[in-house]
């Protein structure tokens, strides 16, 4: 079955080869395992970019293929990050606390250790108690399951309520914005149990891997991110290649017609919304250990809007378009807003990229929507048609 799948979707193989090659090249040029041409922070940026590409693939599934313009998928991404962040922070703090207390004259009790970890983690929000949601923070396996389960469950409940009432189009988009805003505001509270606006930090320090330098860890995370992107891409390509893909594209183009064919449109929407939320959670869980910190600002509504902009610029309704959009726009954004781009002195006015970049990005979004609705991915179609024409 796999052979025929790849034979029917040659672009998937091209994508996998490109991704593999890029990962190898970055590895060979890295400080940790290669020639040291690329700094460790750059490797982390590239690894994070692959995670963003993965959530862009999810966004393309839900928006580009199923036509649901969700402006809340970064909430799922952030939740995935929080879930893995809880384990990372708990386990590392526990390691440090145990080491410190080991030197104490009287051996500490389990309760003392737990209290010490609690005050280490929650001191900043004036508490030493472990909130209920940290019950499983000591178990990597459970927190990994929660990385997909929590975003999945939120999407399932939210989607069930929204789709059942046949909320669609711009109203649904607004509702998803409200969801991510509400979640961010909740997490900002000190008693949310996730350290309020401090968020979770020190996530780049992986417990039990202290002896591994960050330069090597960054390459490992790059591989993990590349693997997740590859699997996510193949999964998404498989979903949209068959009849299921036909049905969701049908829903995008004319949902009442699909209903009259006997398909429960609401169930399909709920399915794709939930599955993509889970993919977003996985992407977030790989992103934040590379970023080192997660706080509620990550779930701000504008983050999810950026996601839609990437997919639109890359070209929606084609998976490689989403990847191209996410990589291209997020990397170029990093460059322009990182102060690396030289300011342009016009004499009467100094054009600072940091100030103008967001405006230029917004402008390019408008231009792409108006003049190139297929985005950058559309250029590939154009080239492909040209080739066909010259062959004929």
């Amino acid at each position, binding site marked *: *079955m796999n052979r025929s799948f790849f034979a029917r979707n040659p672009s998937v193989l091209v994508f996998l080869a490109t991704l593999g090659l890029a990962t190898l090249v970055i590895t060979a040029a890295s400080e940790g395992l290669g020639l040291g041409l690329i700094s460790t922070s750059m490797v982390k940026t590239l690894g994070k970019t692959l995670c963003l590409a993965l959530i862009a693939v999810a966004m393309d599934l839900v928006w580009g293929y199923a036509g649901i313009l969700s402006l809340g998928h970064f909430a799922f991404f952030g939740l995935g990050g929080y879930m893995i962040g809880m384990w990372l922070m708990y386990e590392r703090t526990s390691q440090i606390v145990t080491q410190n207390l080991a030197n104490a004259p009287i051996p500490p009790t389990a309760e003392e250790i737990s209290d010490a970890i609690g005050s280490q983690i929650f001191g900043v929000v004036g508490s030493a108690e472990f909130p209920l949601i940290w019950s499983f923070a000591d178990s990597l396996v459970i927190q990994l399951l929660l990385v997909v389960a929590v975003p999945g469950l939120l999407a399932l409940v939210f989607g069930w309520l929204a789709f059942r009432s046949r909320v669609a189009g711009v109203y649904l988009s607004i509702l998803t914005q409200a969801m991510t805003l509400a979640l961010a505001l909740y997490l900002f509270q000190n008693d949310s149990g996730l350290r309020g606006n401090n968020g979770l930090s020190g996530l780049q320090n992986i417990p039990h891997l202290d002896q591994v330098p960050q330069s090597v860890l960054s390459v490992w995370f790059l591989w993990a991110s590349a693997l997740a992107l590859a699997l996510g891409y193949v999964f998404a390509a498989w*979903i949209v290649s*068959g*009849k*299921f893909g*036909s*049905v969701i*594209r*049908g829903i995008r*183009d*004319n949902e*009442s*017609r699909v*209903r*009259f*064919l*006997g*398909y*429960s*449109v609401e*169930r*399909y929407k709920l*399915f794709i919304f939930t599955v993509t939320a889970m993919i977003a959670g996985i992407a977030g869980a790989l992103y934040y250990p590379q970023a080192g910190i997660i706080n509620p600002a990550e779930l701000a509504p504008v983050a999810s809007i950026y996601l839609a902009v990437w997919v639109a610029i890359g070209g929606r309704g084609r998976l490689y378009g989403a990847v191209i959009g996410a990589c291209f726009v997020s990397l170029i954004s990093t460059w322009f807003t990182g102060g690396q781009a030289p300011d342009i002195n016009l004499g009467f006015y100094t054009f600072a990229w940091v100030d103008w970049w967001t405006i230029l990005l917004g402008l390019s979004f408008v231009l792409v929507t108006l003049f190139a609705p297929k985005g950058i991915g559309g250029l590939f179609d154009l080239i492909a048609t040209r080739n066909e024409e010259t062959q004929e």
Partner: protein
Amino acid sequence: MSQLLEVSGVSVTFDGFRAINNLSFAIGSAELRAIIGPNGAGKTTFMDIVTGKTRPDAGRIRWGDKGISLLGLNEAQIAREGIGRKFQKPTVFEDQTVQENLLMALKAKRGAFSVLFWKPQPADLERVRALATEIGLEDALPLKSGTLSHGQKQWLEIGMLLAQEPRLLLVDEPAAGMTPAEREHTTAILVEAAKTRAVVVVEHDMEFVRRLDCRVTVLHEGAVLAEGSLDHVTANKEVIDVYLGR
């Protein structure tokens, strides 16, 4: 003859306007029926009610051998019960090929998981090819349906209906915008389909209705005005007044 669909005493009001007024209608399991009537007579609303798009304020709809009620079911459930609908404006999925359109409509399990793992069997592809031949699109299978002509889209939609294998077909103005030759072909498809299932055709064009050569129901102001052969209803004084004599 046992009735396949029995609509009795159905009424529906939109913002005070009575679109359907105590309408009763029945059709047998292998019957061709034409519904005619002036604009605003309630023809499209009638189809909306039967297919679950609009909920009536009053009345009953009984379906099938067991006489189950359709009122509690949504559009998708009613479609799965075996009622297919063709819209006035051809609505095919233009971004997808003729083959994909037909495969999507083909009778099979409709659940998300069964669809996800569904793979077309040789028999399914054979069936799609046979349907495409029946609607004159056998050479167009790999083409995007958006590239088809208006008449071809109408046929593709009829083909999708047949692929669903419904027991009742509701067809809204199938001949609109067709050339005379295309109309003839459409008539043949519908007459053939009605040999094994019930077919209801809503039509404005009297010439087309005459060619269908079937029982005719005349709607007026949301109720049945007359029913019988075309000659019978066109001789009816009331029908002439409200419709034909305009």
